[in-house]
């Protein structure tokens, strides 16, 4: 299944957002996620089932003004 993570194409085999984050190496990070423009809280990642072409955003803390 091909999905976009932060704009980059990834071919993943696991079905949920939580599993994809683990597969990509995001485990234990301070991150927040969105799926197709909607916020997905950490508690809902394991029940967020992905589909072909989904857009996942993974954001982390950053300097800001």
């Amino acid at each position, binding site marked *: 299944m091909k999905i976009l993570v932060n704009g980059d194409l990834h071919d993943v085999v696991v079905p949920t957002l939580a599993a994809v984050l683990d597969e990509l190496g995001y485990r234990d990070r301070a991150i927040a996620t969105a799926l197709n423009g909607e916020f997905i809280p950490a508690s809902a990642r394991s029940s967020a089932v992905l589909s072909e072409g989904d857009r996942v955003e993974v954001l982390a803390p950053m300097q*800001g003004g």
Partner: protein
Amino acid sequence: MQLYDVELSSRLMLGTARYPSPAILTEAIKASGAEIVTVSLRRESSGERAGQGFWSLIRELGVRVLPNTAGCHSAKEAVTTAHMAREIFGTAWIKLEVIGDEHTLQPDVFGLVEAARILCADGFQVFPYTTEDLVVAEKLLGAGCRVLMPWGAPIGSGRGLNNVLGLRTLRSHFPDVPLVIDAGIGVPSHAAQAMEMGFDAVLANTAVAQAGDPVKMAAAFAKAVAAGREALMADPIEPRDLAVPSTPTIGKAFLA
């Protein structure tokens, strides 16, 4: 000063972007005495660790964070970003920015009010980055905001207070609402001016981060903000059009 029931002793807030190094950022925050620093969110690939390192640095300093929604151009984007920020940073505070113009980074005040209404209803404590417009300010307060952050000048421009009359009117129109000057501050005297005008606090970022010596500039801003506040408390004189001799004329010798 109280912002959303949090008691603060420093009236200077500091942005964390554009410093030459994390070490200089750390020292600048310490030198500023700021108790609130602004932070943001950006994409991080699984191979990167910059965001994690930055967050550790901020947490070690023990300051309160005010996450922003910088770069958002619609209410929907800003609301989603606010939710993501609340989860990562563990705070209901959000510096709400909805940008309306790419060149001036002027807020889209229509999107701002819309996003503020949604976020306040959802339990966020919103700090809206707005203009000096009174009607917008009224609508933001009506949406549930209890602090306003009017701009001094376009973000990063360093021009100071572009519309002194408008800002003065805003201050007098909302005497009991905490007003924080955000954006456009260039030098400490701008910050002092804002404080003398009765604003509750000032947020500076580029002026400090991009100075030749950010740590020294942070200290200078701290002094300017404190001096401006103290001057306000000391009840300054009103300007006049004509001179008034400061030296008493009584008893002056007649030598003509």
